[in-house]
């Protein structure tokens, strides 16, 4: 039966690859400002937005300007959402009369959603008004997804250099507005309507209380669920309408919606390497990135399927065990973080595979940033290979300097530091004990997972509303933002340095063949394993060796 499921999953992968390839051609037109049939509707709206903002979108930005515009914009967006959450009791569209959120939970929530993480220390169905779900949560899901896309675009342009009319790394406002109006809104709209047709509710009237056959009262919690479900998956966000996320039948009613939603989260991260190749006008270079990221994804899946007794508890009947494992690996490999079965019921090796996806972050990784991380590994790998072969390290004809490598290594090391230091502090000051979690391999796995998920901007977790304490709210909040914006700033800086660099015609090291992706995979694995092995060893690996079947 697992064999059959693997076949179905391969079919899904093929469909996603085809759709991603088609989407990448559309994206190229969008960002290279080609004429489109939609222009007569969209262009006036876009021009109005630019006029309101007072920006000249034809002006090329330096990497610093690009980053600061993105950073301040995201900061303002988070502040707006914060105000919505702490004042939701006074705001409209609150038929269930939910109270204002306290400061630390609201802070955690907006830092989480604005960084594309979607770690949730609240249960949405019993905490957030419709207004908050729309104006705070769905809003941040859109903008954090668009942030990821535009970062990738700027970095691609930097790596591509001064070719094909590519005068700089681009203009943030042009990239951002177009990502919203021409990519994320159309894709989310179509998928939201399909999801409604398949049973996901979309309503603004309050919860309905019904009487069952036996006379008991039951609350049917409807809301603007489909509109959230669409951007949550398309934008690799992952934070669900309800606390129990994508195993709630209203979020994910059937095996068909389950498959569709896995495809939705895979779509844009799969299109990005194709887009990279198209922007370079060297498609084989895009293929290298794609093969490396899908290769890592395949390894991840293989680890998760080592224990054929795939799941012990906490799954929904309509999906079954294999689907739950595929979903868990996919949601961490693409750093989405929505889950269709309780993580607590998963075998330690499935949890290990989930860890690897979040530690590597390029397997293929989250929307936009997955490709960014792959280019970070590319810089490091080209340097290592250059050293071994005794040649000047080069990528796409441009020299990779000592400064580039230093920056890339800082971006890489930010991740383990952000995971391990707060994990240790949490144990040191007793915050872990305070929420009733122990020091054994099970407890350690849960806390390590919490910070790994936060730093990787994934958002799946074991804690849920147990983590709603001031310490965990604030510490994971800080980790999520630093984990988001440090690598983005560094990679934009590298792209800015690369852009103007002289390109040689001679090729010192070929990166566009089929051998290089395997070197890249090996180098990424060595880097990740060397960095994280000790911590994985006392967490999920020890659980596996002790014969513990799940965290439950």
């Amino acid at each position, binding site marked *: 039966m697992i064999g059959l499921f693997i076949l*179905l999953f391969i079919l899904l992968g093929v469909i996603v690859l085809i759709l991603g390839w088609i989407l990448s051609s559309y994206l190229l037109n969008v960002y290279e400002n080609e004429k489109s049939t939609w222009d007569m509707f969209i262009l006036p709206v876009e021009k109005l937005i630019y006029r309101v903002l007072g920006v000249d979108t034809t002006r090329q930005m330096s990497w610093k300007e690009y980053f600061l515009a993105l950073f301040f*914009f995201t900061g303002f967006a988070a502040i707006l959402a914060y105000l919505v959450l702490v004042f939701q009791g006074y705001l409209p569209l609150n038929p269930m009369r939910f109270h204002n959120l306290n400061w630390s939970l609201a802070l955690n929530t907006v830092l989480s959603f604005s960084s594309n993480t979607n770690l949730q220390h609240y249960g949405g169905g019993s905490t957030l008004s419709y207004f908050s779900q729309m104006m705070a949560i769905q809003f941040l899901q859109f903008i954090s997804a668009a942030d990821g896309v535009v970062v990738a675009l700027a970095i691609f342009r930097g790596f591509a250099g001064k070719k094909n009319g590519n005068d700089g790394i681009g203009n943030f406002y042009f990239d951002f507005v177009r990502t919203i109006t021409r990519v994320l809104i159309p894709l989310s709209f179509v998928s939201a309507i399909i999801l409604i047709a398949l049973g996901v509710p979309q309503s603004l009237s309050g919860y309905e209380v019904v009487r069952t*056959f036996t006379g008991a009262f039951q609350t049917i919690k409807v809301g*603007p669920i489909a509109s959230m479900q669409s951007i949550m998956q398309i934008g690799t966000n992952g934070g669900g309408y309800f606390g129990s996320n994508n*195993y709630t*039948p209203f979020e994910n009613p059937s095996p068909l919606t389950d498959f569709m939603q896995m495809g939705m989260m895979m779509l844009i991260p799969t299109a990005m390497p194709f887009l990279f190749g198209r922007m370079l006008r060297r498609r084989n270079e895009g293929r290298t990135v794609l093969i490396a990221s899908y290769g890592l994804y395949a390894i991840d899946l293989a680890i998760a399927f080592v224990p054929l007794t795939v799941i012990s508890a*906490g799954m929904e*009947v309509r999906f079954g065990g294999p689907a739950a494992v595929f979903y868990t690996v996919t949601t961490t490999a693409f750093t989405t973080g929505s889950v269709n079965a309780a993580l607590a019921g998963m075998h330690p090796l499935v949890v290990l595979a989930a860890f690897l996806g979040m530690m590597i972050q390029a397997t293929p990784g989250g929307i936009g940033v997955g490709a960014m991380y792959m280019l970070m590994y590319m810089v490091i790998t080209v340097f290592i290979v250059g050293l071994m072969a005794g040649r000047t390290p080069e990528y796409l004809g441009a020299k990779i300097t000592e400064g580039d490598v230093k920056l890339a290594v800082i971006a890489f090391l930010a991740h383990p530091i952000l995971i391990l230091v707060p994990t240790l502090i949490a144990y040191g000051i007793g915050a872990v004990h305070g929420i009733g979690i122990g020091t054994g391999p099970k407890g350690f796995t849960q806390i390590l997972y919490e910070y790994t998920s936060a730093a990787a901007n994934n958002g799946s977790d074991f804690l849920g509303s147990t983590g709603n304490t001031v310490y965990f709210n604030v510490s994971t909040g800080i980790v999520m933002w630093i984990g988001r914006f440090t690598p983005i700033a560094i990679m934009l800086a590298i792209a800015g340095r690369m852009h103007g660099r002289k390109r040689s015609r001679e090729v010192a090291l070929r990166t566009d063949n089929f051998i290089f992706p395997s070197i890249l995979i090996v180098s990424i694995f060595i880097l990740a394993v060397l960095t994280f092995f000790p911590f994985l060893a006392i967490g999920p690996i020890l659980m596996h060796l002790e014969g513990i079947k799940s965290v439950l």
Partner: protein
Amino acid sequence: MKIKDIIRGPLGLAITMVMICGFIFPVVVTGVGQGAFNYEANGSLATLSNTTVGSYLVGQSTDSPYLFHIRADSASGIDPDITVANASMQAHRIHNETGISMAYFNRQINNDTKFTMFFFGTGYVNALTLNLHLIRHYHKSISQYGRMYRNVTAS
């Protein structure tokens, strides 16, 4: 960078986007969804004698010996489905309690079975669907179990 670049552009964009993504988008999706797929958009509600008795997508827990129960260990806690094996086991219980024939249950479970892999995989049935069929089919003879089917007898 001037202060204007930091305030007007980024703050203006944030305000524009909260309107477009946080308000216009979900409201338009709600309008289209309610218009085109009204039943699904409102939560796939189940009715019996014109009374709403639940949703096919929210499992109902009951301890009535005359009805199908949902599982207690499920991830969401409201998993509306049970496996075919589980349904058959429960059919025996209801058969023993009420005398309703096993042939009826076997036929009904068979009719309502769906699969985890579209046409293959584990078979499962929606517990509410089974219960509704049961009550509709044995409407005339349910008076003796009336206490259990309070909603129906009241209407």
